[in-house]
């Protein structure tokens, strides 16, 4: 399992639109990907789960993945989450 932590810089955290980008990106990889914030851990391919995380700016997100494309998946998601989303 590959695991990496990233801090959210988007000022409004992970609200609706960023959640959609995250899920769309995650869904492209052949891997089981999980996102964890505080004590909640969810499937990164499930939009309702990612939205319910309600992650805010400054919070740390643990990205982990298992499967064929685990490494690529983690890298891509960490990259996406480390920047603010153009509104």
């Amino acid at each position, binding site marked *: 399992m590959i695991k990496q932590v990233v*801090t959210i*810089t*988007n*000022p*409004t*955290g992970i*609200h*609706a*639109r960023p959640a*959609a980008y995250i*899920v769309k990106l995650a869904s492209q990889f052949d891997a089981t990907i999980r996102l964890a914030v505080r004590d909640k851990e969810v*499937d990164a*391919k*499930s*939009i*309702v*789960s990612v*939205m*319910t995380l*309600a992650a*805010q*700016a*400054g919070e740390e997100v643990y990205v982990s993945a298992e499967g064929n494309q685990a490494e690529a998946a983690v890298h891509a998601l960490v990259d996406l989450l480390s*920047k*603010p989303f*153009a*509104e």
Partner: protein
Amino acid sequence: MLQGIGVSSGLGIARVVIFQKGTLKVSAGKLAAHEIEAEINKFEQAQAEAKKDLLKIKEQVSLTVGKEKADIIEAQIMFLDDPTVVAEINNFIKSGHNAPYAVNQVVEAQACIFESLPIPEMQERAVDMRDMGRRLMSILLGQKEISLSELTEKAVLVAHDLTPSDTAQLSKDKIVGIVTEVGSRTSHTAILARSLGIPTVVGVSGITKTIRHGVLVAVDGITGEVFVNPDETMLNNLKQKMEDFASEQQQLEGLVSQEAVTVNGISIRLAANIGKLNDIIDAKKVGAREIGLFRTEFLYMDRSTLPTEEEQYQAYKQVVEAFPDRVIIRTLDIGGDKELPYLKQDKELNPFLGKRAIRLTLAEKDLFKAQLRAILRVSRYGNIGIMFPMISVMEELQASKKLLEEAKNKLIAEGVVLGNTVEVGMMIETPAAALTADLFSKEVDFFSIGTNDLIQYTMAADRINEQVAYLYQPTHPAITRMLENVVKAAHEAGIWVGICGEMAGNPELTEHLLKIGIDELSMTRGALLKVKQKIREITL
């Protein structure tokens, strides 16, 4: 005449079409074991059909309304495909429940979760969730509902409420007005109606029961009035009102690309005030090329930790890249009236005369330094200015400048690339600063007058206090003399002076301010075009 809340400007006159949805009856009846597989297939088929319908609607919306609104439909499609949602529905069916029941349970549960989140934007997703659920259930129950795109002539739509996928199908050529029983200025119906330019009134409770299908109505989206069966005179008055409004809109739109130049050819610098990243789009829409006041407080509020230098850098970068001509960034202007959980703030009896703005940041040096560093780092993306709020005494300005210089030197030593143009200025909002502007003018590259606070401090009256708000007089001689003094001091020192308070956005004061000699007016996006129009009408 019925009264509601006007949420989308304009006047719509047409016959009523009442849009009502039937109730979907979901039974809790259980399935026999051998029926379960068929039910799972039924759900899969309904899911596919709903997805097909939504994709069609999404395309329609993209073409008629725009990509942004199509995203609302996209969200529903994503809900439909969500592995967690689908798995839960299948689980319910496998334990013997019928598909509509399963969908209802799962959708309701998820909608409630959304509603329980402390973020308004997330709470609104509950509406989308239920909308999607309803679509699925209506297919499963064989009660597929007619779509709004089936209307044949112009109509005023009357409904209890409209769901996101209803409003997404609205097109301006068929629907000339909307009246709903519930809703607010910020509900999705209002937001979409505004972006489509359809006159809309919400909050007219009971209208679906009291109004008859086919009756003529006039909907005034500004006043919130709904006229039922207006007579000839009323109709003519309303039509005139409509024409005046339309030509005013057209005129304003035409102004976006025009220059802010007076009749006698003097060019005036117009800028926009912004307070959050979403404002960037609005400011661009009205043709702003400069930001005269970038309020940074949004980065510090509604959170439990300090914003990091990196977060700030990313946010400031977005604004500067969008407006490379000039962005004036104001350092943190906040105080005891706002609770910041990460700062130890003593309770103050008088927070507006207390430890706020520059007083606060000079006392919290790490906070201040982080902000100054982040601001300096974005100077490479465009011309920027830094301004310090609420300066009263020279020591505050000097201390701030010193910290800025230290931050700059440290960044250079770290090898960070900095831009060439970093103007260092201050806000003039205290009477002390306004009256000694000649002493300050030699120490800064510009002044920006915060007239809101300056007027309050000078007239010693709180504009929000109804009992004394009458004393808030922007054109009182005391204020005019102060402005004249500040302008004189600025120009003698060869620096520019702008106004970023509300006065700047009031077209009735534009001539007055420009005649005093103000060089730049920075205002809220909504005021920019009207002020530009005024500038083009005057001679200086």
